[in-house]
């Protein structure tokens, strides 16, 4: 179980104190899928980055199975089983797809085993493993590779920051299959998309840096739009 206790993140803008997150308390049970949603600027990505250790909160604690991991570095949290998929995948000058996939797996793999992960995101390993992970790949390809790395990691807690952003139609249709394949892990997904929200066991709505509401089920999802400033994207698509 992953627990967030009194997480607050404060910045100063023009000498004025601004709470990006304020006293957030959440529990994520094992083997359940959570979607964090909310209007732009509600603090979703900051919260995800705080869990992974990419952003340090102003105050508060993070517990993983009762152990305080608040002071662990990003890689130490990764070794504890936390895994993170970036909203905008990072590109490199030099590193190839196979290099990243091998680090994600924690060992050197042959084409066949990398094929398993890449084919789950609709990619042929032979076409991609020796390609540099740079911006010559399309946004959709980079996003799919990001998802393949998450599957290769076999994390205990998977954090996805807007996994649907920028992906092509194929990946979008298959995203829910990918989340189903990760049901042995705890999945924390940041998303605006109704189709993604519908895969959640529980939906957390953030607004102005605070937990506005937590709930589950279709009627709850239908009501989210009233909580949020705008309509959920994709609802009328």
């Amino acid at each position, binding site marked *: 179980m992953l627990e967030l206790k009194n997480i607050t993140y404060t910045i100063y803008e023009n000498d004025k104190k601004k709470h990006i997150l304020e006293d957030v308390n959440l529990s994520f049970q094992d083997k359940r899928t959570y979607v964090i949603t909310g209007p732009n600027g509600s603090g979703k990505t900051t919260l995800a980055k705080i869990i992974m250790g990419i952003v340090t909160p102003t105050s508060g604690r993070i517990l993983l199975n009762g152990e305080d991991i608040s002071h662990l570095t990003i*890689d130490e949290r990764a070794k504890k089983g936390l895994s993170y998929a970036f909203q905008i995948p*990072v590109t490199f000058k*030099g590193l190839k797809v196979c290099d990243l996939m091998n680090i994600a797996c924690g060992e050197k793999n042959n084409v066949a085993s990398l094929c398993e992960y890449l084919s789950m995101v609709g990619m042929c390993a032979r076409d991609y493993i020796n390609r540099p992970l740079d911006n010559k790949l399309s946004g959709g390809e980079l996003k799919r590779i990001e998802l393949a790395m998450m599957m290769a990691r076999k994390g205990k807690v998977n954090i996805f920051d807007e996994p649907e952003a920028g992906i092509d139609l194929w990946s979008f249709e298959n995203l829910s299959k990918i989340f189903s394949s990760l049901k042995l892990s705890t999945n924390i997904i940041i998303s605006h998309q109704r189709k993604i929200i519908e895969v959640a066991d529980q939906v957390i709505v953030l607004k102005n840096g605070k937990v506005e509401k937590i709930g589950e089920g279709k009627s709850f999802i239908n009501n989210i739009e009233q909580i949020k400033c705008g309509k959920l994207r994709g609802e009328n698509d």
Partner: protein
Amino acid sequence: MTDIEKALLEKISNLHKIPSGAFSIRRNGKMLKKSSTTDIEIVEKQDGSGIDIFVKPNVKNKSLHMPVIVTIGGLNDLVYNSFYIGENADVTIIAGCGIHNSTCNDSRHDGIHTFHLAKNSKLKYLETHLGEGEGSGARILNPVTNIYMAENSEMSIETIQIEGVSSTLRETNAELQNGAKLLINEKLLTSDKQKAKSNFKINLTGEASKVEIVSRSVAKGSSCQEFKSNLIGKTSCFGHVECDGIVLDKARVISIPKIDAQSNEASLVHEAAIGKIAGDEITKLMTLGLNKAQAEEMIIKSFLMN
């Protein structure tokens, strides 16, 4: 050969023993051994200043090894080598220079190479430069590469200098006729107080000639690198220079581009990006379980090697 010489030879040219095909091995300013084949002839210049290499027309898939090793201090080695690549030939030349200096006197090797590529010929030229040795004497390499490319000839150059060279000044000049294509990949790593300068002057004289230069460099310690490129497009041609540098510690990297379009049909591009390792690259690798030092090492290694 001594163990040091054998190790040096292996590092710069991957040779474990004397190669079977054409080769020329230069040691401490003198020719150690050379061997010609029916396809590739190596002739010492009459004035003793270097060698002439003749690749016969239509010779395909052959290679020539020509490593240079320097294992003594106080040597100032200057050599002039000329390469004549025959029409329709397609060959690979594996060159390189390694200096092992364990003395307090400077050792220097200046290789002046001139390439003449005949019509429709293809040449792949690989060159590794390396400096090592525990002495305080400098290890200096100042290569000059002059390239004359006839119609529709193609040359690809891969140069690698990975640490240990105290000072280097690399001059590359090329003249491209109609349809000639030149591709240069340069990889450079400097550390401590090392200095490296690389100057390119490429004349795109012929129609549809094309040059692509990709330079990737890493500067550590208080080392300094300077990259200067000058592309001159005289007709309908294409030139692209990409200079990527990673600066660490107190190092400095300077990139000075010059593109000179002397025709409105010339298309010349220069891109340069110099800075520290991108923070998001380190963060990404850390989310996969590497610590910061491991992440930096992997980023630098792959930046230079791939």
